[in-house]
């Protein structure tokens, strides 16, 4: 069940000129959150910006005895709301509602887990990697960014035995180009009898390409979609995605309730 808390900001760590990791004190949210779920966050009580923004729970923070104490979010500065988040100071209060939405379905061996992240779409995969590791699932992170300086948390994933496949659009690190290219090759060479679950989060074009690639090889794919969202609770009907229903037709489904994790092969991609 989600809770709405006035969360104290514990820390704010800039990762680059645009990306930051904001840590929020929110024990109730931290102990209830599952990988893929999200929170609605706004720093300060401004009327402009007005609305909260949805963020995947990036990490669950724990005290030394393992008790959940808070969550972090991975944010990219793209407008006034994310600028407030980028500039937030420890001690400030952030409105934080969550955990919200339907989480990832976590696979078990012998299935492998292939996580495909584009840019800030890395966010849901830190907690997913922890869950997969606890189940001894062999995990690969396909992670694409614009440039080397925007590939974050690589050691975090390495420490959790996650194999990294990296691309940058400018070629400054890893394979030059988009992340779907190495995913396609890897899927092409995988034995049909070896099960694999594809998880994806990132820009819409990358998600659509990942979904098509997974479908091409007949592999299941769960995508975490990002939509403009006013409330996160199902009240506003802003965040709809056309999804195939039981009647075989497409219907507008609220991604805050049915998602943000959705079955890629049921979405009507543009």
């Amino acid at each position, binding site marked *: 069940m989600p*809770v709405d808390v006035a969360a104290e900001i514990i820390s704010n760590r800039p990762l680059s000129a645009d990306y930051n990791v904001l840590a929020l004190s929110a024990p109730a949210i931290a102990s209830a959150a599952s990988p893929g779920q999200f929170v609605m966050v706004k720093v300060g009580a401004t009327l402009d910006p007005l609305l909260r923004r949805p963020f995947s729970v990036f990490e669950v923070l724990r005290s030394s005895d393992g008790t959940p104490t808070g969550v972090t979010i991975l944010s990219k500065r793209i407008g006034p709301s994310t600028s407030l988040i980028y500039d937030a100071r420890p001690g400030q209060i952030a409105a934080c509602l969550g955990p919200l939405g339907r989480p990832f379905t976590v696979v078990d061996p012998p299935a492998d887990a292939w996580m495909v992240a584009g840019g800030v779409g890395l966010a849901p995969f830190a907690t997913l990697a922890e869950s997969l590791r606890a189940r001894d699932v062999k995990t690969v992170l396909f992670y694409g960014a614009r440039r080397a300086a925007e590939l974050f948390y690589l050691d975090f994933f390495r420490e959790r035995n996650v194999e990294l496949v990296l691309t940058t659009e400018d070629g400054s690190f890893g394979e030059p180009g988009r992340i779907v290219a190495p995913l396609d090759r890897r899927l092409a060479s995988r034995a049909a009898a070896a099960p694999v679950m594809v998880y994806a989060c990132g820009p819409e074009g990358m998600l659509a390409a990942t979904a098509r690639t997974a479908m091409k090889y007949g592999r299941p794919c769960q995508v975490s979609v990002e939509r*403009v969202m006013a409330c996160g*609770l199902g*009240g*506003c*009907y802003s965040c709809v*995605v056309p999804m195939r229903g039981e009647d075989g037709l497409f219907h507008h489904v609220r991604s805050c309730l049915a998602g943000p994790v959705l079955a890629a092969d049921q979405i009507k991609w543009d």
Partner: protein
Amino acid sequence: MDLSVRIGSLALKNPLIAASGCFGYGVEYADIVDLSSLGGIVVKGLFLKEREGHPAPRVVETPAGMLNAIGLQGIGVRRFIDEKLPELRARRATVLVNVCGTTLDEYVEVSRILSDHEGVAAIELNISCPNIKEGGIQFGCSLNGTYDVVSAVRKATTLPVIPKLTPNVTDVASFARAAEDGGADALTVANTFLGMAIDPETFKPRIHTITGGLSGAAIRPITLRMVYQCSRAVKVPVIGLGGISKAEDAVEYFLAGASAVQVGTANFYDPKAPLHVLDGLEKFIKRKGLSSVRDLVGQMKQ
């Protein structure tokens, strides 16, 4: 302290109502808000049949406000009665239903169906949604249309009938009078303002339908003025809304003549907004040495 209010024949335990389109069918907020603690909930607009609404993007934030063009996506009146109303009743919510129609007959039919079921306290007539082509606002933008739809629904139900007026007219008070003449028990003032936003980088409109309804703090002075004008033009009670997110905002509306208020857009960024307003209102009334919300209604001093 007495926080109860009467809206015609409708008795509410307090004057804070969640606005239609901003609180889903109510049940979506039940984990966060005790639904029985609200004066009322106006559930999302219902037609006879299900509706898919408009393609995304449906919403964009604007300065201190937001534009929306949801297109009244909804499950239709029968599914509402079967799937949502029982839970709302179990949670002891005071349920007002926002009734939509593309024709006069549809308004009447939806209202009749609702009247046949226990658990609906009142009908709010949506003659003001700016985002659908047929019906709706066509009635709300014509004095005769307003009178016709209100009087037709009035004859079809014993429930209180509360038309929700559009602000997209020159003289809102004349529409308030037309609705009162048609037999309205109260008026909701007002729906959203038609607006638009364009992305200067891509040259594209920011919402799919190009134009949409503007709501939030940005519109408060305008709807406040309309509540003032309407409450002076009619004898029936006026329910005010537009940009209310704290007690002082609600007090402004009461002073302008509102008998109750609705909280809309604020529910999106503060799901407990109506309760925060209510809590602040109670403190405000105490601080002013008053005994009731009714002591504020229409009490602006000149």
